[in-house]
């Protein structure tokens, strides 16, 4: 038994995550110190590389775009009480959807092809999530297990298709031919250039706007709509859902469909915005980062945007760091990322309890 954890909203949403991040950086600093490097220099490189230059910032925001999509995907499922860790596989299938649409409808103009490509991504991502959703809803197969299996299935399916079916005949690389040029989502530096503003070149493209719009949509859906209400009832209190006449099975499937569609945004950003072809492993494990992002952002769209920015900084800054301080390898950066995930996600309760305790004491002192 423990005292109830009552925190003011600002402490719950801002203070506790902030403490987690600071603690994570302190521990990560100790790790850097342990391998004989200066943590302060490392921090400087990390921030310099991710925020200090226009180019670095562009890359940071590019990664942030990826993380917003997968973070939202995890969050929507989470509100229905589901732990969707299949973002990786759903994004992979979304990539397949994009390639099939774009490379078969090459005759269409860009203003049609781009939305169709995005729809293709959403549809394929949704389908890949709907199957585990259906199995959970109707058969009770645990969503964690099935989504993990579906990650592997997606991965081997893509290998098979890229090696045997979709590969360009002349090419040795397991990738499709390039998408038609009119289907490229414009780079941000090109968009700004069109208005006569020059910003440094990076992978950042207009998908970021789509990501932010999706975040708003998810907020509206979850917190304001009738459907979102039903989703949250199912996630929070399944027996109340039955009482209310809400079918948990139906909601589980709908939530997974939405979740998978959102995960498809990762493929839109990576493929339509940057790579312009379908290739192996383009998801780079970001689907899993989405879990940490959603946890840290407390499954709220605003929190997810902020957490995505943090992870964007970490990924971009980490790459710079590994480049500038060779003793801190890429793997080291992964370790630091892991420490942050540990503190923000798994150990979140630790600080929450501590802060709640302090607040309770303060209140007593005042009383």
């Amino acid at each position, binding site marked *: 038994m423990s005292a109830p954890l009552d925190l003011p909203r600002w402490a719950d949403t801002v203070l506790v995550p902030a403490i987690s991040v600071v603690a994570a950086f302190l521990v990560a600093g100790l790790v850097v110190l342990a391998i004989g490097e200066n943590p302060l220099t490392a921090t400087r490189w990390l921030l310099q590389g991710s925020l200090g230059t226009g180019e670095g910032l562009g890359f940071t925001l590019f990664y942030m775009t990826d993380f917003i999509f997968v973070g939202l995907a995890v969050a929507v499922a989470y509100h229905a009480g589901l732990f969707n860790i299949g973002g990786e596989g759903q994004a992979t299938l979304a990539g397949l959807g994009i390639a099939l649409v774009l490379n078969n409808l090459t005759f269409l103009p860009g203003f049609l092809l781009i939305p169709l490509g995005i729809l293709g991504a959403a549809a394929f991502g949704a389908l890949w999530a709907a199957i585990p959703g259906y199995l959970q809803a109707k058969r009770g197969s645990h969503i964690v297990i099935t989504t993990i299996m579906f990650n592997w299935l997606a991965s081997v399916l893509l290998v098979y298709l890229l090696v045997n079916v979709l590969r360009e005949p002349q090419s040795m690389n397991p990738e499709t031919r390039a998408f038609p040029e009119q289907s490229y989502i414009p780079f941000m530096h090109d968009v700004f250039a069109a208005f006569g503003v020059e910003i440094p070149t990076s992978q950042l493209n207009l998908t970021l706007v789509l990501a932010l719009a999706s975040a708003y949509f998810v907020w509206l859906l979850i917190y304001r709509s009738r459907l979102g209400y039903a989703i*949250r009832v199912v996630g929070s209190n399944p027996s109340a859902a039955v009482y209310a006449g809400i079918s948990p099975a139906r909601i589980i499937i709908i939530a997974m469909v939405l979740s998978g569609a959102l995960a498809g945004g990762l493929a839109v950003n990576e493929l339509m915005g940057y790579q312009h072809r379908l290739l192996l492993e383009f998801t780079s494990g970001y689907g899993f980062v989405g879990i940490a992002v959603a946890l840290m952002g407390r499954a709220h769209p605003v929190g997810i945007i902020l957490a995505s920015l943090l992870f964007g900084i970490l990924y971009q800054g980490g790459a710079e760091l590994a480049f500038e301080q060779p003793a801190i390898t890429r793997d080291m950066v992964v370790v630091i990322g892991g420490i942050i995930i540990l503190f923000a996600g798994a150990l979140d309760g630790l600080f929450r309890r501590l802060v709640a305790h302090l607040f309770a004491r303060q209140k007593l002192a005042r009383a």
Partner: protein
Amino acid sequence: MSPAIELIAINKSFGAVHANKDVNLSVERGTIHGIVGENGAGKSTLMSILYGFYEADSGEVRVNGKPIVIRTPNDAIHAGIGMVHQHFMLVEPLSVVENVMLGAEGGAMLRVGEAKVRAELARLAKDYGLEIDVDATVGDLSVGLQQRVEILKALYRGADILILDEPTAVLTPAEADALFGLLRSLKEQGKTVILITHKLREIMAITDRVSVMRRGEMVATVETANTSPPELAELMVGRRVLLRVEKAEKTPGAPLLEVDNLSVVDSRGVLRVANASFTVRAGEIVGIAGVAGNGQSELLEAIAGMRQPVLGSLRLEGKAIHSSEHNPHRMRQLGLLHVPEDRLRTGLVPAFPAFESAILGFSDEPHLGRGPILDHDRLIEDLAKKMEQYDVRPPAPRLKSSKFSGGNQQKIVLAREIERNPKVLLVGQPTRGVDIGAIEFIHRRLITLRDAGVAILLVSVELDEIMNLSDRILTMCGGKITGERKASQTNEQELGLLMAGVVDEAA
């Protein structure tokens, strides 16, 4: 002789809630001491401090005159304090002996400890009349016997002071009598018993002294012989309360709910309701009396459409309900509303703000929003009005549902259902965990509703409540309806027998 337990100036706060304020309590050795109070009065907190679940912020605990520090339940056990919780802490697949041994195995190998337990259980059986089949599987025992195992566990661990938290909530009247007999024999053998309850009848029947708590404070300790239920109720609430609601005789109207031969099987395939048939008429309250777990819950859920019955049929206002429309959504549309038994697990969503819980089951109503989007301002305004009508405190629609007291939560649920003008209202445990002041309010509302011509089916494990509110009473035992009586022509003893499954010859 110093008292068995002395609590001196105990204080305990949870956040802003001052659960125990300078509480003093003295319990004489060899007595049965009752503690009464409304929900949230601080009884459970006080006992949790005594048993080491919580540590007091300040104050002193003395056992047999000696000041001691109790930080964990183990400390309490060493001090000779045992506790029987409302929700049993037993391992159902294990035998009685194994349950008693659990946590007191006495070594790595079980055999030595087991022999000791058997000898000790035999002695306890002899001394206190605590007979039990020590090799029975606990899960197979009746609730009354499971409680006996809890008491044996405490005694085996050397308890001289036994705390019982709402021990009769799950017992039939006969089982409760057996428990009281047992408590008396414990007292005769010099044990001290602390009985926490909200049933004043029990306090009057068995305790020597009684302490009353209100809002975290100990407001009185009196000799039971010198007090009365109305006086205790007044002490608990802080004002005069009516323990019985007045209701006029009324001739019921047309049958609104007809249940015919209904049978329900639970998810494990166990038959929970067997061939139930009855009618509820307009302007009539039909109460279902029964010990918890005898099929009443499943019956309510089946009528509401939350479970599909395996057999039988329903008629609402004379029209047969087809199985394809027998779901909660459709039943609501047809005017059958439902105040579920378990507020926190079913009736509302604890994590939601109150205004969202106040539309549970009705979130599809078109006037609550525009298209797919709910109009929060409107929901908040609606609930604010209802909170005023139903005297919900605090009247804060944005407050989390879980932050309201049980009585206020129940009022939110009642307001939601009643304000939608039901034709038939199913009500499960309307006053479980609800304070006396709110009970009076809720009972009056139900009577008003009955007088307005609503057909009400009431399920409650509080026999007093059933007798008080109902026009007709059905008794249930083991999933069967074992009897039917007019409320004005029966008594507790008769209902108790019917609830225990004694075959009804009059029917």
